[in-house]
């Protein structure tokens, strides 16, 4: 009987120790998985409209390949409008719209818009906050920028003292608006003062950028650092398919943007297929 007990304890001892260790490991893995579970990398929810930069910062905290990525945006405006970006605490490089920029996600960029049609001498200082990025095929990042439109109507609203918030979101293919969209004619929904445009955009698709216009003007002594939101770094894009730094002095030509590829040759006729030669 004694020998039997020895043999049984001998066979159960290591198994018991290993089992205990495995149990501890499994319990820990379960707890760790539940604690470190990240929300799905899709939309985000938050409460209402927040101050510029807050939503982008929250988006960065969610993780992903966002920090340091320059998301291309294309800013369009009525013809004749001049847009200057904030760099180094000053508005530099004014140039005619449209313009393509690479903006960091989570940062707030202040612009100065002048030359507004029918409003000579007037200025508007909108901000752009990119809160998410696209994942286009490699090499086509600037072919598919986030379109940010400064419409004549909204610029005049801002001049009249209104505060305009435009949340640009990426449409869901299944629930997209069943209408053709022409370049420069971005469809939009209007929400009332009691509603949150970012929440509405979150319901309709994936919010990508926030454009805010109106209300704030720089102090008489010039724009301070808070007004410029620190003048975060940005990249510019030219049609030569190369990145380059912000040039000092006069702006450059942007009218030689390549057109979207279109079919020019007529379609070939489809021959009637006969026989099993295609197999």
């Amino acid at each position, binding site marked *: 009987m004694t020998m039997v007990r020895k043999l049984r304890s001998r066979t159960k001892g290591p198994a018991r120790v290993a089992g205990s260790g495995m149990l501890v490991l499994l319990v820990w893995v379960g707890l760790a998985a539940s604690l470190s579970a990240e929300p799905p990398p899709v939309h985000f929810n938050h409460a209402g409209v927040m101050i510029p930069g807050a939503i982008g910062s929250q988006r960065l905290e969610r993780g992903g390949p966002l920090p340091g990525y320059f998301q291309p945006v294309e800013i369009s405006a009525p013809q004749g409008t001049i847009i200057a970006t904030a760099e*180094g605490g000053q508005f530099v490089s004014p140039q005619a719209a449209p313009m393509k920029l690479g903006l960091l996600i989570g940062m707030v960029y202040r612009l100065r818009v002048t030359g507004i049609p029918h409003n000579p001498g007037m200025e508007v200082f909108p901000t752009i906050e990119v809160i998410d990025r*696209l*994942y*286009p095929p490699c090499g086509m990042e600037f072919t598919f920028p986030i*379109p940010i439109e400064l419409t004549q109507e909204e610029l005049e609203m801002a001049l009249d003292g209104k505060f305009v918030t435009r949340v*640009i979101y990426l449409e869901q293919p299944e629930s*997209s608006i069943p209408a053709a969209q022409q370049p420069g004619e971005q469809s939009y929904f209007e929400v009332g003062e009691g*509603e949150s445009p970012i929440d509405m955009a979150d319901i309709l698709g994936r919010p990508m950028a926030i454009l805010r216009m109106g209300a704030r003007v720089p102090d008489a002594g010039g724009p301070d650092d808070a007004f410029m939101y620190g003048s975060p770094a940005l990249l510019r894009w030219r049609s030569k398919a190369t990145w380059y*730094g912000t040039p000092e002095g006069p702006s450059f030509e942007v009218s030689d943007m390549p057109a979207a590829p279109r079919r020019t040759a007529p379609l070939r006729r489809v021959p009637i297929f006969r*026989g099993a030669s295609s197999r």
Partner: protein
Amino acid sequence: MTRHAEWSQSRSCSGRALIATLLACIPVVACSCRSVPSMQPIPSAATELQPPSEATLIRRSVPDKVARAEKRQRDYPVVQAAYASDAEPQKPQWQPHVPVECVADAGAPLPMCGGSHCAPPGLACPWPRDEYLCDGGDSEIQVNVGRDRELQGLELEDTVAVYETVDGETKIEPSNRVCLYAPRFAAVRQVRGVVQSEQTDQPIGVERPVVPEGYQDDQLATTAIQPEQPVGEIGRKLLNIERVGEYAISAETLQPIAAFEGGFSPHEDFLIMRTGVIRESERAQVAEAVDAAITWTHDLAMQVMLDGKEAVSISGEQKAQATFRIDVPNHPCLRVIKVASTKVAKPGDIVDFTIRFDNLGDQAIDKVVLVDNLTTRLEYVAGSAQSSRPADFSVEENQGESLLLKWEFKDPLPVGHGGLVRFHCRVR
């Protein structure tokens, strides 16, 4: 006992050591689990039809990242924005985003991680889904054919072919799914009034309206409905006889028997031939007929020809009944392939779709119908539909405010034959 005690002590020590080792490994595993997952290369939409070769997608080692980043810097020079003021520029806090895991096509560097090449692990391609415009295949709800040959469960983006086999069975074959990178944007706008300086000093008065405490409304009755109730009941009789009239309905069939004259012949007028049940009283007659049947050898018996193919007898020698079997091909197979002319598209672009279908089975199929339910963002270009086989083409509006394209092919599709259809769509 002493040896056993030593062994037990050593086992206990080893057990503690094992637990300590496991506990020591926990932080290591924890750190590794909390690291940022690297981007994984995934096949692009263009290679969805065929498995990607190993040469096209390569994972590079860590030292290559530096060389690749340098090469990218040469090919795609990234220069930090310069500052126009004389103030010393601040050193940026960010670091340039360097995709470290993605290379494609013989090691060509990728300037940025694109959606068609990289996706977080565990997510299906194409990723992100909301940036791609897909068409084709059979989505979540499986397409079925109703009794009246109506397609059920046909969702947007679905592309299926419906056909009938030689034995009358209706089959459905979905195509592959084609995805284009075509993100589209919309906006939500809010306009608020801004009040820069508004101040309320003090109230100048209190408005306190006096309201009535009550309200009484007396209305005279204008109509009285039977104010008096009955005081007695004379009597009431229930129905105790019911006459039911049923008329005979003439039962006659209007379908005459065709090609079957005289009923059963004497040699086959048995219950087993009629119903398959053997009657004991007919056994002798059946045996006689069996002997008569056995005298017919295969050479003398009638040769069965079905559909131009010789039947093979599998009957035994001593059996009256002979079962002839013919190997009817019953493996229908229709392959439907859908391709698009481009992998990326912007609103307003024209995309050409081509659908090829081939009968890869071992029997001809009939009543082939090809259906493409266009998604919301695809607008069919009128008059652009082409077909290599005679077909009736029709369109109808679908639930996505787009069109459902349908080709109904007139002729059966023989074995080994196929066809093409082609149409153009404008990306909305």
